[in-house]
């Protein structure tokens, strides 16, 4: 179904996922994507090797019950864990990647990604409330071509930020990405500038932007919107950087020290405000949103 879509030249029509307003409810009742539900009932922790009952793992927000390793998680599952029930209004679901360079294999990769994630692109945008605090929300989807940023990802983020400006709402972006999407060449590169420019306008308007870095966040995404938060949060152990560890190893011709490019390493080096466990993400974000609520401002209490 998705494959068909990408073969058609310009405007295509698909009736099902992602949902128009009417199917929103349904989408929310599907807390985790196919990808995350293993075939069996057991999942092996990629860090400590513990074999976990998959229902327990899901209930623990995919944090290993033995070693607290934060397993990767889909955009929709994260949304679920985070927001007030049924409060999500999704935006710009109709945008689809084109293949502007005619890049070898790109349309096939898009179709595969859509198929395996059930998403139309590598980002989910919209508004929702967290403990009653309205906010604009953006989630990268690591399963969609490694969460890479092409024209659609950039456009959806820029639109979400501009919408936040219009609504005078804060913005929270959960990043996970391999970087700019090579298959759209220079167009992908300039999405870094585009998202950063939109965030500059948000900052000028005095609105809050919280960036949450999750495993892994690299390249053009780290070097644009992900690093521009008024407050930058990371999940424990998340790998975060510009250049990937393999390339650094090759260039420096030496092993990286243990723990290099983890959230903890980044915090030590001043890049990150807070490391927050997944279970604490919702209350922490709610707390920050409350601190920055217009009514909470000093001037407003006079």
């Amino acid at each position, binding site marked *: 179904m998705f494959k068909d879509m990408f073969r058609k030249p310009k405007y*295509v029509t698909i009736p099902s996922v992602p949902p128009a307003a009417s199917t929103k409810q349904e989408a929310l009742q599907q807390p985790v994507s196919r990808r995350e539900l293993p075939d069996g009932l057991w999942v092996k922790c990629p860090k400590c090797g513990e074999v976990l009952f998959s229902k327990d793992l899901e209930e623990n927000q995919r944090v290993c019950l033995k070693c607290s390793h934060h397993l990767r998680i889909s955009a929709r599952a994260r949304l679920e864990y985070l927001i007030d029930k049924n409060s999500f209004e999704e935006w710009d679901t109709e945008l689809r990647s084109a293949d502007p360079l005619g890049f070898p294999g790109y349309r096939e990769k898009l179709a595969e990604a859509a198929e395996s994630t059930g998403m139309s692109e590598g980002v989910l945008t919209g508004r929702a409330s967290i403990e009653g605090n309205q906010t604009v929300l953006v989630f990268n989807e690591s399963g969609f071509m490694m969460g890479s940023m092409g024209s659609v990802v950039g456009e959806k983020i820029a639109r979400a930020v501009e919408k936040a400006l219009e609504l005078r709402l804060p913005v929270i972006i959960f990043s996970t990405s391999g970087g700019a999407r090579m298959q759209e060449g220079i167009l992908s590169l300039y999405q870094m500038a585009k998202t950063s420019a939109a965030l500059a306008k948000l900052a000028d308007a005095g609105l809050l932007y919280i960036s949450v870095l999750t495993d892994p966040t690299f390249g053009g995404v780290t070097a644009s919107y992900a690093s521009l938060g008024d407050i930058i949060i990371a999940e424990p152990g998340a790998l975060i950087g510009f250049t990937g560890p393999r390339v650094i190893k090759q260039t420096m011709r030496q092993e990286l020290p243990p723990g290099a490019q983890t959230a903890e390493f980044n915090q030590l080096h001043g890049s990150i405000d807070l490391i927050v466990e997944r279970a604490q993400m919702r209350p922490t974000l709610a707390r920050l949103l409350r601190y920055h609520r217009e009514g909470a401002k000093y001037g407003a209490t006079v």
Partner: protein
Amino acid sequence: MAQLFEFEKPLLELENKIAELQKFSREKQIDLSSEITTLENKLEHLKKTIYTQLEPWQKVMIARHPERPNFYDYAPLLFEDFLELHGDRCFADDRSVVGGIAVFRGIPVTVVAHVKGKDTKENIQRNFGMPHPEGYRKALRLMNQAEKFGRPIFTFIDTPGAACDLGAEERGQSEAIARCLMAMSGYHVPVISTVIGEGGSGGALAFGVGNVILMLENSFYTVIAPESCASILWKDPGQAREAATALKFTSQDLFSLGIVDEIVPEPLGGAHRNPEQTAEVLAEKIDKHLKALKAYKPEELMERRYHKIRSIGVFEREILE
């Protein structure tokens, strides 16, 4: 004479042949002028054929030519005066980024540029033109001053990309690049960015948020180095040539995609064949665009730049039933 690439060899052969004939004619006092003229015309024709039909990978080779003029070569040709300023006020003076105040046709401007070295020693000093975080922060400091003092900003892009070592990661390379992007989008002065050689990924883009983006004819500007692209795509850096074509990163490609406002023609064979001429043409283009930007108020300059950047991207819209 400049180092020659494989695809330039036929020219050399022809040039040699002409030289031989000339020598022979001189020594033997035989008139071969019509043969020589024929060959010279052929050479001229061949040059045009080769240099105007360069494939992307050949442009990469020219853009990376060790003798390709860098910012320091152009500075005295473009400006009446240039005073280099140093340091990020925080950690170091990164030599892969050069900045300062220059006078362009009577107008003080702030310039920021990547600079590669001309030899191994200089390349080590300048980290092969790959900036560390302090390089972007120096540039940001200087550009912020341009904004403060109402000076136009000229950036010159020429880098294989951001530094890739642990120090760059430790000192927040991502943040430094992102801050440049964010700040540049908000300036109220004209910003003119020119790709003069390699425009490699985030390190290049950091100076690329211009009201006007120019590219020298044989430069390229890419999301990823063709070698790395080939490695990822085909597990074979040897296929860089194919990647170079696929990535659509030549000046003509970027002009077609609407990213680049104008291509700056180079002398046949590349900028290194005649830096003076290249600079002269570049200066004319910059002057033209700078004059055109004078039509706009500071607020408009900012808004127009925003809309230029904001509108980059190609996508489709699904029609919901």
